[in-house]
């Protein structure tokens, strides 16, 4: 009874739980080592640390792009390793992911890139249009709706990737260096956007090198180095 209650409380409060999570890549690189960490529902968390520290690896595990070598990773009380293929796809649709390298589909227009998941979900065309237009406006690119990704600058592509991550009202936003290609003012604007999303209850995890940005936003930040937690601020 006790354990059931605490499990229930944990499910209610914690969204992401890792215990002794390790990721060993094939070349013997330990990208993550015995990482135990809890991220609460509705939290806004920064992941920081030097290049190669394992930030992207943790986010990839959270999207279930990769599976842990050891340890466990639970989201909303369910181990990601146990999900079936279609459950994985459904889970991914509930996550907004901003990739470090954007990953836009080259032959899709900006509009198609952003609205793709809604299209797959069978959202009404009018709703798709309205929502896509809205997020594109948030990132300031509504006028580039019909452009192809290759016609955009790096920063513009990054903002499209952000728009795609936010369009489907995700329960969890995972962003890998979402401001890596943006100037400081625009970076802060995007962070404010994430804060707004977070204020509406969405959990946000942002990986970034930018300590100045973390300082200005002022939220919990976990510093990784060599796959281990070295500091929590």
């Amino acid at each position, binding site marked *: 009874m006790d354990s059931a209650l605490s499990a229930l409380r944990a499910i209610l409060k914690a969204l992401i739980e890792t215990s002794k999570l390790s990721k060993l890549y094939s070349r013997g690189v330990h990208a993550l080592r015995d990482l135990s960490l809890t991220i609460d529902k509705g939290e806004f968390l920064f992941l920081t640390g030097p290049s190669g520290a394992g930030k992207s690896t943790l986010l990839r595990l959270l999207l279930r*792009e990769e599976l842990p070598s050891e340890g466990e990773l639970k989201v909303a009380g369910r181990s990601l390793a146990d999900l079936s*293929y279609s459950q*994985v*796809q*459904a889970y991914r649709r*509930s996550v907004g992911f901003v990739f470090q390298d954007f990953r*836009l589909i080259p032959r899709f227009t900006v509009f198609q890139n952003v609205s*793709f*998941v809604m299209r*797959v979900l069978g959202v009404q065309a009018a709703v798709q249009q309205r929502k896509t237009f809205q997020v594109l406006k948030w990132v300031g690119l509504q006028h580039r709706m019909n452009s192809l990704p290759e016609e955009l600058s790096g920063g513009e592509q990054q903002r499209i990737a952000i728009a795609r991550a936010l369009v489907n009202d995700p329960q969890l936003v995972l962003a890998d260096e979402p401001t890596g290609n943006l100037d400081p003012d625009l970076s802060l604007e995007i962070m404010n956007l994430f804060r707004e999303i977070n204020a509406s209850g969405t959990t946000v995890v942002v990986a970034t090198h930018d300590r100045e940005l973390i300082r200005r936003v002022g939220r919990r930040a976990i510093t990784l180095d060599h796959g281990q937690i070295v500091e929590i601020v």
Partner: protein
Amino acid sequence: MRALQYAFDEALASLWRGRTSGLLSTATIAVALFVLGAFLVATSNLERLGAEWSRAAEMSVYIDDETTPEMRSAVEAMLAPGPLIVSFRFVTKLEALERFKQTFADLAAAAETVGDNPIPASYEVRLHTTPGSQDAVDELAARLRRSEGVVDVRYDRQWLDRLLAAVNVLQGVGLVLGAFLTVAAALTVANVVRLALYARRDEIDIMRLVGAPDAYIRGPFIMEGVLQGGMGAALALAALATVFLAIRGRYLMPLAAAVNLSSVRFLSLELCLVLLAGGMLVGCFGGLVASGGRDS
């Protein structure tokens, strides 16, 4: 339904982008089904020939020149129309000779020199061609042979059996050849689809990572195979029909007339649809194989 529409749109776009390699698989499917279809046209017509021949199945009962009217009426009693026999007709010696002269003009002179008419009178008996009646026919023939005044009974269906055997062989050859070509076509489709898949692997990765269901990721590729198969089959049917129409008047009709076949026909609508569906199935199979496992 939505996934189907999506798959269809994407497959059309992809086919258009990769039209040269798509042409290759469409062409191989077309060749395979053309060969298969040609065999089908041949065998279906031969089958009809067999049916027409057996409908005209006859038994000849040859009568001795010295037969008395009593003997003849005994024979006629046995030939009364019933479950086995449709009707019979008496052919006199003279009539038989006339027929012989007409059929074998060259030998007619020889027949004259013999002097006496050597050809016996006979009854031509039309038989029902109910399946399984063979035993009863054999039995009837035996009884007729034992009757006084009957010199011979001929009802050999050897020709018919040979024809039917030939149809079987032809069907077998066609099926084996068609099967080989169909497998080759399926492999070609699989390779072409795999090529398209390889060219778009980044895009597929992205779709997987944003959570697109399998139907949306593999669907377009499978649909591409289906469309290639369908187009190949349509092409094969069109080519077959063209060839058929082109040679019908010159070659097929005279050939049919020579073997007493009333008409030469193209594949039935059902067979055309079966071929079309077959092409799509082959393409679908190629697409399925090529788009392979669903490793996330």
